[in-house]
């Protein structure tokens, strides 16, 4: 689709000596030259470093059969994940001039596996958005239709993979930021169980929801990246202490597998063609479907934003211009704070900080933040009940296909509602994957979203891989 091999294909070809990393990097370079100025997928590119690293990889040995190995594989990283010595802008003016002195754990693991980091991808400022339009580096466009958004907030990662600017990418998913752009760009986006992947070095947006996740061309590639970056990390106390289970991507669907169709998601869906596209492979393959009802899903956007914004107001307090990033020097501390933050943050970020500050304030915290917490616990209970009836839950990834640039920028509520199907699994900390439906809607891809019980990441990947083959 993007003209590039998948991770699996490339790794095999490199092992066999049928491909060279420098050739792939050259191909990527060509794609970047052709598309990047229009798409704006990258904030920073490191093509010379990538070429040098590719040469080095080619000169060395490709450790055949040793999995997981990413030697010579070009990967893009969302620019809210720290890479040592490089800027980490979060697409915000406030981080102007900041260079990360350390590698995020996921980056450390990618580097250790031999991956080549091509560049840092564009995003909604601090990952706050569903269209990649709030970036201080300018909006990202959808390579499949340049008038449309690539989704967000990991729009740059999705767009880069979609146009062949990288073989695969890492994004981050707080309320859908990996899955929804993957769906909009016809790719696979995987959000693992909260706690599977270290958040150390992922710039916090909403800490209790943030997860790093791969955006790839295939489920197999998602599984490969996942197996490299997942697992406990002493630097992140919220990681799950056990290593992920082994996976066996056979492409077979185990007999008796039941898929729960999330009633509310399909009922509320305006565009029936998306529903049809999402349902078709399951009907074609004769997979047993059961209807499950999770009424609380309908409130997920409100709860998600209350929690996320509250955490935003806390997590973004550190950007004060004192130690790093952009400082607008004024007479006195208060004015320096006000001006540095006032000029450093964009409107959407400010809106969320303000609402979140309000939501945590004395006298309001019970009505807002604490209520959302109670909702979160109740939602998890509804999921548990649903998983009594089904092994995996099915919904569309998003209520629409990629929408037009500028269509929702002046209507924050409409923008927030883009998360309506992706927020619930994030709130319940569940593993969740978006794979492209074979049928397009008006030529645009739609995402099939599958959710599994917590920690069943490997089973989810195995199942999604099988569905992908249908």
């Amino acid at each position: 689709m993007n003209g590039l091999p998948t991770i699996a294909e490339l790794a095999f070809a490199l092992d066999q000596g049928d491909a060279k990393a420098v050739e792939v990097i050259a191909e990527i370079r060509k794609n970047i030259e052709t598309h990047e100025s229009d798409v704006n997928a990258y904030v920073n590119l490191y093509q010379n470093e990538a070429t040098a690293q590719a040469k080095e990889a080619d000169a060395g040995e490709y450790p055949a059969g040793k999995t997981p190995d990413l030697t010579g594989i070009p990967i893009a990283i969302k620019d809210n994940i720290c890479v040592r010595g490089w800027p980490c802008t979060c697409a915000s003016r406030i981080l102007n001039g900041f260079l990360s002195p350390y590698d995020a754990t996921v980056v450390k693991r990618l580097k250790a596996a031999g991956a080549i980091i091509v560049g840092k991808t564009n995003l909604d400022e601090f990952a706050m958005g569903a269209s990649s339009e709030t970036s201080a580096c300018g909006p990202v466009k959808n390579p499949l239709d340049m008038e449309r958004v690539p989704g967000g907030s990991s729009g740059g990662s999705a767009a880069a993979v979609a146009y062949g600017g990288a073989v695969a990418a890492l994004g981050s998913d707080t309320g859908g930021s990996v899955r929804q752009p993957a769906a909009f760009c016809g790719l696979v986006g995987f959000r693992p169980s909260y706690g599977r992947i270290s958040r150390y070095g992922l710039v916090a947006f909403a800490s209790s929801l943030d997860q790093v996740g791969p955006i790839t061309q295939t489920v197999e590639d998602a599984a490969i990246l996942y197996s490299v970056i997942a697992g406990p990390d002493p630097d992140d106390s919220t990681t799950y202490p056990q290593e992920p289970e082994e996976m066996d991507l056979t492409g077979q669907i185990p007999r008796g597998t039941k898929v729960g169709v999330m009633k509310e998601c399909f009922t509320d869906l305006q565009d029936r063609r998306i529903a049809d596209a999402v349902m078709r492979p399951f009907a074609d393959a004769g997979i047993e479907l059961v209807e499950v009802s999770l009424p609380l899903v309908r409130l997920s956007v409100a709860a998600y934003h209350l929690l996320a914004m509250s955490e935003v107001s806390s997590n973004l307090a550190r950007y004060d211009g004192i130690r790093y990033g952009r400082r607008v020097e004024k007479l006195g501390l208060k004015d320096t704070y006000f001006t540095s933050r006032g000029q450093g943050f964009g409107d959407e970020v400010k809106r969320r900080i303000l609402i979140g500050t309000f939501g945590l304030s004395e006298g309001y915290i019970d009505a807002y933040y604490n209520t959302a917490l109670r909702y979160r616990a109740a939602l998890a209970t509804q999921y548990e009940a649903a998983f009594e009836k089904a092994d995996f839950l099915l919904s569309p990834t998003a209520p629409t296909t990629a929408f037009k640039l500028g269509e929702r920028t002046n209507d924050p509520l409409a923008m927030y509602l883009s998360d309506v199907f992706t927020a619930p699994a994030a709130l319940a900390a569940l593993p969740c994957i978006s794979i492209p439906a074979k049928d397009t809607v008006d030529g645009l891809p739609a995402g099939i979203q599958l959710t599994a019980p917590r920690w069943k990441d490997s089973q989810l990947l195995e199942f999604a891989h099988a569905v992908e083959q249908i």
Partner: protein
Amino acid sequence: MPSSKSEHDTSYEVVIGIEVHTQLATRSKMFCRCAVDTDAEPNTRVCPICLGLPGVLPQTNDAAITLGIKAALALGCEVNLESRWARKHYFSPDLPKGYQITQYDYPLAEHGELELPGLGKKIRIRRVHLEEDAGKLTHGSKETLVDFNRCGVPLAEIVSEPDIRSVEEADAYLKELRLILKALGVSDAEMERGHFRCEPNISVRPVGQKELGVRSEIKNLNSFKAVREGIERAMADQIAWLEQGREIVQTTYLWDEKARELRPMRVKETSADYRYFPEPDLPPLIVKETEIEEIKKGFTRASVTVSQGTTVTGSHRFILPAEKRKEWLDKGLKKQYVEILVTEPEWERYFMQLLNKEVSIKEASTWLLNEARGVMAERKETLSQFKVPVKEMTTLIGLLRDGKLTRPGAKELLAAMAGQGKGARELMEEMDLGAVSDEGLLQEAAKKVLAQNPDVCQKYRKGKTGVIGFLVGQCMSQMRGKADPNAVRRTLEKLL
């Protein structure tokens, strides 16, 4: 002083609660692996975590948690098996994340008490929780500099109930609390270095009134003296305002050390809303019962093991001051000496070393805690400057015990040793202070004195045996104090 009387003859009662922030004696910080070294060059004990760089996450320091539990247990608190971390938000250049990680709804421990020594009163402890310190600001004329070395240093906050009713009680509470923390190795608790920060809240009310008055809180009290003065000041102000019929507004004051005055810092109306909420980057703090038991085992009861010759400061043995006090009193040591041993560890160490060298408690208390302490006071020396090592002090006591030295001779010798730093035997010979024990010399002196005082001899023989004291004194001065008075007495009795 349970109440203060005003000129209007109303008696007032003061109600005090105290928050203490104590720096835990760990090697590394609360949430990162940086060394705790606040004297280092500014901003050299920092890392991405304590500087709050984008993307970092905290990791708890087990050593700090253990010390927190130790303090809580020593204060008789119930340790919560599950406590939680919270974020407290405010903007300050010395607070890199824009929030402090602390504990709020679910503290590490609750419901303890501390008995005020000598006063017998118990002050309830509301809670003990853990948190991180902020950095340090240095204000210059044009700019303010920030040092983040202190940022993330572990603190325990110990909050009392408002059970304190006088300046004396407040003083006793803080001194005993500090003693406990030091004794357990929980904190160095050096006040002037900010390891032990006291923030009392004070209100007054007419005696008999049930409701509490409006509180004044005081920060920046860096000595016990400042605490006393600050509380007295706040009390006096509040009583004056009540007398004048003025409304008291809840206010936080800073103690101005130079002016010895209270400076209002913040009144309640404008007080900060800290927007506490659960810290999402850290799981709840789980303490296992076995861990608590393990720590409890470290607390030793009644183990001033003089006979076995072991010292009290073993590697993981902790004795609470109250227990130590009782122990020494039971062993017959005088109260004022006990207080020295309980409150001054270096004196206790010296004392224990003497006991280990088979010096008796009586001898050690007389010669160290009384005589040597007196010598040092006169010389304006501390124990660390004292030139008489344990070995020489033991020798001196031994010489006295063996009759080689008289009491006055020993005193003179001790003073000389403190001045010159020479050995006891060497100096005794040099100064010719050795006690005369030669029977012939004693006899000679006694005979001479008896011959000079026939009338006194007469009295003695008539049964007024008390007069022998006079004769002993005469003999002693004859021998320039170098004889053992008992030996002299025996010789005189024989001759008479």
